[in-house]
């Protein structure tokens, strides 16, 4: 039974599917409630006033925001959707979205714990630094693209509708809270739909594919890095726990594990679906390919230096 590369079992699938839903939904709720409050209570001009005027520094600041406002990859999408709606440049939001699931204190602690005895300090610093650098590079690269090539038409159309309720004509707080609740619930159901589809596909792969088939690829740097990134995409793990899984792949070089830990929180099967609630499908696929190539090349280069 175990020798086949693909063995689907409905019970295993249901179990993995439910466990990811149960783990992820609280963070989706948190993210969408926050998005509702942002929609109703964060004035656009206040947010824009505090943003660095330079595009470069704005992206750098966005990529570091996870240190102050840590968010996981599931909860962050509704938040950045709302921030974009409020006028935050897409490149800044993209930097926050890609970096925050890696560049945050929880992930630093879990990575350190998982790699204790395997150069934990260096590995943790490398993971956070590479996550930050890739998020900044990708965000700067997309900053020149027209909005219509990035965002879904529905979101572009709704950009003009965002309205601030502060000032002398502010609505009563109770009505604003009700409005925030409706915004949050809309976001929750919207993202939940994509989350369910993504988790379902990821659960098929994480339970049915025999992971031993990847072991022969461990001895070649190029194949090892690509394989570990592919695995991260398929397993769709939470960024706070993925380091513990990466650490178990002892046959693979450290650079391949690093690729797993940087690529996974930025792009996986469930995220492809969740991102599709904000971005155009073609853009999401392009982003996936770009991240795969960029992180892959950096990690292969690191592997050649002996990492």
């Amino acid at each position, binding site marked *: 039974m175990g020798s086949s590369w693909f063995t689907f079992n409905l019970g295993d699938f249901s179990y993995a599917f439910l466990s990811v839903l149960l783990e992820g939904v*609280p963070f989706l*709720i948190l993210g969408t409630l926050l998005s509702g409050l942002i929609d109703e209570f964060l004035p656009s001009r206040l947010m824009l006033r505090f943003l660095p005027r330079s595009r470069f520094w704005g992206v750098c600041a966005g990529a570091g925001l996870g240190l102050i406002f840590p968010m996981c990859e599931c909860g962050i999408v509704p938040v950045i959707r709302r921030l974009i709606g409020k006028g935050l440049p897409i490149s800044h939001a993209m930097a926050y979205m890609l970096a925050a699931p890696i560049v945050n204190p929880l992930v630093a602690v879990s990575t350190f714990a998982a790699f204790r005895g395997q150069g934990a300090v260096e590995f943790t610093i490398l993971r956070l630094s590479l996550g930050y650098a890739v998020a900044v590079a990708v965000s700067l690269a997309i900053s020149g693209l027209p909005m219509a090539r990035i965002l879904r038409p529905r979101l572009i159309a709704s950009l003009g509708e965002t309205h601030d309720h502060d000032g002398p004509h502010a609505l009563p707080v109770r009505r604003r809270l009700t409005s925030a609740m409706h915004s949050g619930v809309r976001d929750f159901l919207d993202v939940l739909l994509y989350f369910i589809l993504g988790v379902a596909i990821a659960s098929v792969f994480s339970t049915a594919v025999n992971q031993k088939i990847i072991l022969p690829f461990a001895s070649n740097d190029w194949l090892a890095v690509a394989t570990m990134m592919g695995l991260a995409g398929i397993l769709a793990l939470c960024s706070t*726990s993925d380091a513990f899984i990466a650490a*178990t792949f002892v046959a693979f070089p450290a650079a391949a594990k690093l690729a797993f830990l940087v690529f996974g929180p930025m792009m996986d099967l469930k995220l492809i679906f969740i991102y599709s609630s904000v971005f155009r499908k073609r853009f999401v696929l392009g982003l996936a390919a770009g991240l795969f190539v960029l992180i892959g090349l950096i990690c292969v280069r690191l592997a050649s230096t002996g990492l």
Partner: protein
Amino acid sequence: MNVIASGLRTPIVLLTWGVVLGYFCITNRIASYLHPSFHALTWVSAAVLILLAVATALLPEKSCTHDDCHHHHGGGWLSTLVLIVPLIAATTLSPSEFGIAAVQNRGTVQDMSQLPAFVPRADDGRAKIQLVDLLYATAEPSMREDFENRNIEIVGQFLPARTGNPDGDRFEIVRMFVMCCAADARPVSVAVQSDRPADFPAMTWLKVTGRATFPFENGRRTALVVADSVTEVEAPAETFIY
């Protein structure tokens, strides 16, 4: 009528999710899915979802009257079904533990180098030890001294030995080592040697009592339990080890 029905879709979805999450918490089925540190979050989420269901039912969102409205007022019945049916179906179908196919696909960890680094634990004098302790003991001399040739009792699931069983008197006993949820569960196993044939269905829960030994096999130190008795038991309340 259609307006009422479409207005009810959101509360129905929220209520379904809230009730299902609440069901997992109340029945403690959640213990088979998530690390204990996530349980409180699930309780809170269930309460929030039920409150939101009530609030959205009592305070429905006003319909937009303007033609250029681009708000998204929830999907149709198809998306409502996608939001509800897989959750209920999986809740009904899930056995709350992995079967042998998933365990074999993930591959069992039999070497402490594949586990997070050993963290010393206080000696509370327990006779029951976790399976993972035996793996740590293979690399930690002080733990090995504590366990070597001592009578121990471990609980885990039966897995037929696939390798390292020349005399046909060994099997593996496996537990799921979890960091966050079952999706990141890693099967951890040790070998058991038994005089009596162990002929259980795969993944049967067993209690093994016997002696802990740490022989050198194939050039590395391994954990091997020499069993005095092997008995079938009910699954423990907490099937994971952390």
